[in-house]
């Protein structure tokens, strides 16, 4: 019985991966965010060079663009979830895979499988670019720190994509989900800044790859940040699962 349910999950996961890979928008968004990230990394690097050199570490310059690029991963997550509701595909999906909890979990896992390498590449490309540009000024960089920071950045993007997918699945429609999430990540959160508690998904996740400047009170270690963002993601995925199992398709 165990074996068969394991095989069942593999099949569903395969189907969900197929769905993501054959959706052209997903590819566009991944490539688009990669290119945009390079352009922005270039912009940040030259802006950083004009500033008094050395105030910002190269890692931070290379990763600063992720503030924008995370939008691509937010949209990626929303699309992965909401594409089910286009063209009545959800009915096809559920008549083939009527085990809703399993299906939605497989979808999130499939999304993570695609996001992890893409997120790692995007973060690494930004850092490598600024490393390359500033190689003459920089005084060597610790490989260990770099790997840790990159892993943190990739983890942040992946968890953000999963969180967005869960919210997309809760709302069921692309546009409200995009407005809600982009509005939160890009308008409400930066603006309200200090008024909001530090354990919200974006502020906590930020500490996964950005090291707080000395003066900050709410500073968290990367591990704490990861834990908090993971909790948020799991919370929303659970809510999405509960609702998905209950509602009429």
């Amino acid at each position, binding site marked *: 019985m165990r074996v068969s349910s394991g095989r069942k999950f593999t099949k569903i996961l395969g189907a969900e991966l197929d769905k993501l890979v054959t959706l052209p928008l997903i590819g566009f968004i991944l490539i688009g965010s990669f290119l945009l990230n390079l352009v922005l990394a270039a912009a940040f690097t030259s802006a950083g060079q004009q500033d008094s050199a050395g105030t910002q570490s190269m890692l931070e310059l290379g990763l600063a663009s992720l503030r*924008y690029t995370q939008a691509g991963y937010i949209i990626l997550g929303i*699309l992965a979830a909401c594409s089910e509701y*286009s063209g*009545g595909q959800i009915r096809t999906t559920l008549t083939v895979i009527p085990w809703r909890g399993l299906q939605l979990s497989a979808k999130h896992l499939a999304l993570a499988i695609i996001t992890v390498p893409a997120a790692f590449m995007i973060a690494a490309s930004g850092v490598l670019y600024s490393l390359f540009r500033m190689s003459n000024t920089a005084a060597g960089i610790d490989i260990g720190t770099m790997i840790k920071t990159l892993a943190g950045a990739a983890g942040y993007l992946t968890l953000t994509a999963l969180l967005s997918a869960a919210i997309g699945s809760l709302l069921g*429609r*692309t*546009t409200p989900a995009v407005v809600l999430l982009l509005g939160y990540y*890009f*308008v409400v959160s930066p603006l309200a800044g200090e*008024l909001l508690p530090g354990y919200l998904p974006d502020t906590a996740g930020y500490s996964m790859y950005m090291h707080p400047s000395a003066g900050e009170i709410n500073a968290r270690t990367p591990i704490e940040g990861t834990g908090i963002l993971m909790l948020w993601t799991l919370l929303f995925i659970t809510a999405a699962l509960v609702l998905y199992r209950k509602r009429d398709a």
Partner: protein
Amino acid sequence: MRAFQAELSKLFSLPGIWLAVLIGAVAPAGISALDSIAQKEDIVAGISTRLPEAGFIGLVLGVQGVIILGVLAVSSEYLTESSESGAGHQITTSLTAVPSRIHVLLAKAGAVAVISILQCIFAILTTVSVTHLMLGEYTPSFEGSRLLGTVCYWVFTALLAFAFTVLTKNALIPLAVLLINSSLVSFSVLLSKITKLAYYLPDRAGAEMFMVMGDRIHTPFTGGLVMFGWVAVLFIIAAIVFLRRDVAA
């Protein structure tokens, strides 16, 4: 005129438009309130450098509402994301009801412009009263010319979103680009650190119609003119594309 009324009734029967109107009406006041809270100490102490911006910050960031309005007005004609796939592309119906495409486009743009003017006036009223409430006697004066600039900024932004969406036929890309760009972490602000050309981007130039910025290079009038130029060019391109395109494509 009848086409215009038809467009108005089409817009108001979309739930998304009501969301946009709500955001446009509430967000500026909310943002100004947040900003006033954050700034109050400095303002009272007389050391704030941003006093003339108080209140207006809400109006420059609160254009989200009209962006959603402009995008949805167009994308709703093309994309229907309902569980019943019977719902098709409304654009076919629109163009058979009013066969002249340029009339449809102008009527729709007119409807968007009128709604965004009303929305902006409402937002100004709420924002001014909220700022008065928060800052009391320290409230800066809201000059008529700057408020007029705000209205222009909103209408131009709505029309930019509108024309952009005619080109993409899809809500996702314009919504993501414009929402992020109208936030605190706008691309234009970043780019303006690198190249002077960024001052000619529509949002940066348009904001000078009413924001007092340290590094301004336009007068309010030329700023408005630059933004209007963008609107005109983009709108003409959108009109040409819309007139030539096969509806089904």
